[in-house]
């Protein structure tokens, strides 16, 4: 797209515009009140308008001059890293910290371009012992160690 001279600014500006519109739109459900007695909608409205203005300025700046491209997004690290912790959140209460830790380490390690499965399993087991020792035994955090059926 030839008219975008500074892609980073252009897209960042659009992001802020979107956020501003979102804030104004959702915030319109809250009582605005008056300047002297501000309702819950007053401050979000100010912020939304400011974001809209700033976003427009930033986007406009993106149409002039020249700037770096937005770096390509390699999806594997993002998906695997975020996926592994979300998965951990889903399973830890059900199957306990020990096994969840091994799974988290195994999945997370796969995000690296130098993934070594055996090494990851060993690291997972060691870290499982460590995290159970530190967090459950040591700091008394409320986390099950083993799956429900064994309790």
């Amino acid at each position: 797209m030839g008219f975008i001279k500074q892609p980073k600014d252009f897209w960042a500006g659009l992001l802020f515009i979107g956020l501003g519109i979102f804030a104004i739109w959702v915030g319109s459900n809250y009582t605005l009140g008056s300047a002297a007695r501000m309702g819950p909608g007053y401050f979000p409205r100010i912020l939304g308008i400011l974001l809209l203005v700033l976003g427009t300025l930033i986007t406009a700046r993106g149409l002039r001059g020249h700037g770096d491209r937005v770096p390509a997004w390699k999806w594997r690290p993002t998906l695997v890293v975020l996926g592994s912790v979300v998965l951990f959140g889903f399973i830890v209460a059900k199957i306990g910290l020990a096994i969840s830790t091994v799974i988290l380490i195994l999945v997370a390690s796969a995000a690296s371009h130098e993934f070594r499965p055996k090494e990851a399993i060993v690291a997972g087991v060691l870290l499982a012992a460590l995290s159970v020792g530190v967090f459950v035994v040591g700091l008394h955090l409320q986390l099950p160690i083993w799956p429900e059926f064994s309790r």
Partner: protein
Amino acid sequence: MELLNHLMLGFGVALLPINLMYGLIGVLLGTLIGVLPGIGPVATIAMLLPTTYALQPVSALIMLAGIYYGAQYGGSTTAILLNMPGESSSVVTCLDGHQMALKGQAGAALATAALGSFFAGTVATMLIAGVAVPLSELALKFGPAEYFSLMVLGLIGAVVLASGSLLKAIAMIIAGLLMGIVGTDVNSGTQRFAFGIPELSDGIGVVGVAMGLFGFAEIITNLESTMKRELATSKVSGLWLTKAQFKAAWPAVLRGTGIGSVLGILPGGGAMLSSFASYTVEKKLASDASGFGKGAIQGVAGPESANNAGAQTSFIPLLTLGIPENAVMAMMVGAMTIHNIQPGPQVMTSNPGLFWGLIASMWVGNLMLVVLNLPMISIWIKLLTVPYRMLYPAILLFCAIGVYTVNNTNMDIMLTAFFGFMGVLFMKLGCEPAPLLLGFVLGPMMEENLRRAMLLSRGDPTTFLTRPISAAMLAAAVLLVVIIALPNIRKTREVAFQEET
């Protein structure tokens, strides 16, 4: 005399065995993450916050503070031995520190960094103790209008001195303010931006935001690039300085301490800015600048003293005014709030043990660092040989456990993952995450003060301009923006930040 009494009280608290222990844990962890590239103090503090619920607030704060200044010590080790900044504040230490290591003077460089940091830490601790009382007394006279303007000045100052585009940084602040007010509105009880999700009615947790933006996003960006690390030397011998080296280093230490102490207090200041400023000054003042970049000991002594002084004096605005000036201080606000302490000038009078104990603990912590770190350097070097592919899954694990145990719900992890995604997006679009975090923690306070000020003035917004202190602060904020927007200064600023990267 009063100062002496305060310090006595502080040391009485800081030297309690339990606080000594948490201080030690803090500085050791700080050194550890300082040594390890790819994880910084913000993410570490976020990770550890949940484990401090059960502690006394003072013990928790002592530990978390130790992480910040401990990281300054650790960062220099990696910079000198690996030519890679363990922390952003030790970027300039790479330049000459690593050259010294290549010449076989690694021991001298490490000793300079440690001793310079200790000296700076001592001076900074005394400075905090000295200015705390007058500043707090001044702040106690502030009404809501003054507080609102102070926050505006603090936020603007924080982005002016930070790198990157000013417009984008201000937009990030506003986005942060907006995220900060998610949840139940204290005045009306209205649920704002909660979308019927019960976990959101208490607001978004600072732990999740910080860990997502600074922890996860950092790991993901690191994984996208292929990093390589090489140790300059695995053997460090002679951890001491020759007479000539000592003579060359100490004036730089003094100057670095002075620069760091001043820049640390300014909004947006802290460890990183201080170290850059100090390096520039040393280079300008040197009788023979050609030695810089080739292993000049002043290039290590100055910045390393400055970053430690700056790290510590950046506590001054937080402790006396309740205003965080950088992302680490924003985390300290989060920590205080979790322990039901409203940061601000009243902390000193309502919680003197905590206030002076925290200050005294900084000196104690610095002493621990200098005593422990020099002999422990070989252990830190071993840690550096752990490859990143094994390190980051462990960091993720501790993050996941930390976030999960805040409320024992999966919702927090999902939120953190969301902020991790946003963090990567922001980095790709060239938006700094630190202003967002600052806005996030200040959001509720800013709204509250705006409301009160406008209520008192019966809806007249000129109250911010007719009250002299408030007007002065707003004028200063506008002036800062104008100065930065002037073409000449903008160019030099861009050049200055180019040199950083």
